[in-house]
């Protein structure tokens, strides 16, 4: 085990507590930089989606994980970012301009959503953000002069510094990675300064936050705006990656996917957003496998177990029908959420910390270290 001897206040401020972090994150960054030259184009495409989802995850983490305000409307923020990009692109606005404009506009919309949210707590806030997302979805479908309605909009390839950036090329991947890294660094900076602490204070006790001089309303709106702006930036990249956007892409299911990202990853650390994004994006290949290969595999197993060719064919059809059933994806998401909430509320990153501690303390690790405690309900909580 490593013991840190702190000799300077700087030791508590710096992002990397000791050299080990520098080496491991440096190595990770190096791997990510050489990835396009090693991985297949399919995996590269998945990696771009991981970057985009993780960026949204970081944005949602600021709002939900650190400020304690739930949101099931982040698909709408993503949509606003994506549509702003697609709309401005028609007028030959350069990429850096519409990228910033999309973030700014989404941030403003986020702040506007934040105002009614000031009076809402918990489940009511969730309902309000869902309604907001439905409103945005409806506007996208109806405001045909701008959004082209249900026909959707084409997004042309990105023009950056006079060159065309293909959505499958390494440059686009590096751009997404840079946006993710900058978002994470900015968020970490925020969390080690007064604003970030005010967010956490609001999450844990609004009354105490207020009595410490924190303008709770202002900081909630700030949190909404920052979270939305980050999601808006991700939306621009999302639009470019898909090269076509239409209202039915930004549904409640997408918002739920974002919640899954932070819930599965672990809502208490930014690591969670990245781990959750990797997990979520990798569900898709799993579903494809379920659809394409699984029926054959099960039929093969049935055949070796002595089932006749006709019977094996029936089994294959049945499994295929199940695997391609409508709503299977949603059902799987539901099961995943339930399993994580019940068995690992700290998410993948919490699990990782436990495994790390196991090896650090080996052979002295005690299973009860992370046992959940019963917390007494406070009788006189001021709201």
């Amino acid at each position, binding site marked *: 085990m490593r013991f840190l001897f702190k000799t300077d*206040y700087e030791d508590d401020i710096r992002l990397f507590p000791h050299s080990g972090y520098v080496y491991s994150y440096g190595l990770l960054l190096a791997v990510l930089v050489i990835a396009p030259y090693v991985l297949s184009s399919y995996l590269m495409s998945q990696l771009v989606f991981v970057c985009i989802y993780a960026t949204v995850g970081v944005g949602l983490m600021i709002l939900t994980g650190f400020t304690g305000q739930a949101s099931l409307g982040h698909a709408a923020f993503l949509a606003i970012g994506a549509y702003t990009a697609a709309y401005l692109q028609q007028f030959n606005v350069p990429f850096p301009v519409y990228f910033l404009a999309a973030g700014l506009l989404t941030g403003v919309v986020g702040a506007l959503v934040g105002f009614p949210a000031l009076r809402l707590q918990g489940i009511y806030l969730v309902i309000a953000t869902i309604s907001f997302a439905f409103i945005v979805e409806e506007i996208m479908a109806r405001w045909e002069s701008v959004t082209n309605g249900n026909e959707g909009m084409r997004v042309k390839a990105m023009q950056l510094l006079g060159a065309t950036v293909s959505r499958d090329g390494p440059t686009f991947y590096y751009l997404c990675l840079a946006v993710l890294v900058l978002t994470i660094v900015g968020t970490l900076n925020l969390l080690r300064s007064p*604003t970030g*602490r005010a967010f956490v*204070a609001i999450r844990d006790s609004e009354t105490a936050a*207020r009595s410490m001089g*924190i303008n709770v309303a202002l900081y909630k709106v700030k949190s909404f705006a920052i979270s939305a702006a980050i999601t808006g930036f991700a939306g621009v990249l999302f639009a470019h990656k898909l090269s076509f956007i239409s209202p039915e892409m930004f549904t409640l299911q997408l918002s739920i996917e974002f919640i899954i990202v932070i819930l599965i990853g672990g809502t208490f650390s930014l690591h969670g957003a990245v781990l959750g994004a990797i997990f979520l994006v990798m569900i898709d290949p799993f579903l494809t496998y379920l659809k394409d290969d699984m029926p054959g595999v099960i039929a093969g197993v049935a055949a070796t177990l002595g089932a006749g060719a006709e019977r094996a064919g029936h089994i294959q059809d049945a499994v295929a029908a199940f695997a391609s059933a409508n709503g299977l994806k949603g059902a799987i998401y539901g099961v995943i959420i339930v399993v994580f909430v019940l068995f690992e509320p700290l998410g993948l990153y919490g699990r990782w910390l436990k495994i790390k501690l196991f090896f650090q303390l080996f052979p002295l690790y005690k299973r009860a270290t992370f046992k959940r405690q019963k917390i007494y309900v406070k009788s006189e909580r001021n709201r």
Partner: protein
Amino acid sequence: MSYFRAENLSLHFGGLKAVDAVSFAVEKGEILSIIGPNGAGKSSIFNLISRIYPPTSGRIFFEDQDITQQPAYDIAKLGIARTFQNIELFENATVLSNLLVGRHRHSTTRLWQELLFLPSVRAGEKAHRRRVEQVIEFLDLEPYRDKLISGLPYGVRKVIELARALCSEPKLILLDEPSSGLNVEETDDMSFWIRDMKSELGITVLMVEHDMTLVNRVSDRVIALNYGRVLAMGSPSEVQHHPDVVAAYLGA
């Protein structure tokens, strides 16, 4: 003019008069305790001062300024800090970040500066940390700096809440039952700290307390309340022997 003054302060919940036309004044540099049976309206007065409830009627003055209509977050900025009867700490944060939240009213950095963590933010953080460290030394909290609140025992949390209030460098501090849930030894420590706050840090203290030993040891003056009304006001022994106070406690 008094340093802090409440005039005809009332708080009614429908027909229930939690606080009923209470007037009192706190002089600069004194320790004033409010005592009274359960439900007498002691904590309600605190919640009126820190603007968790708006008063039904009456006015509150601090340093000759009417603060009755100030929003809750401005009260702290004026230099009034408080602790809570049922501890209200930020449970899933470390002791250090709890204390740094106490410094919030002194922070001057802007959002964009914080996103980039400019040198000014870094310098501000270090300055805050230095002040926090002084409070940590004052209240002997050195062993707990990096611990999460959720894993700490009640007695320590109580001290941390006091520390968080002190970190905001208040002029007036409101202590809501500082000794509740503490053992005899911890209560002794608490009484030393309260007196030191007055003598060393020059903080005026307004305190709600049930433990009469602590009240007698530290208070300059005492106010006794019952059913939202002031029964008696004066030195600790005067108030304790006041016939109305005896009747309120013993039901005679």
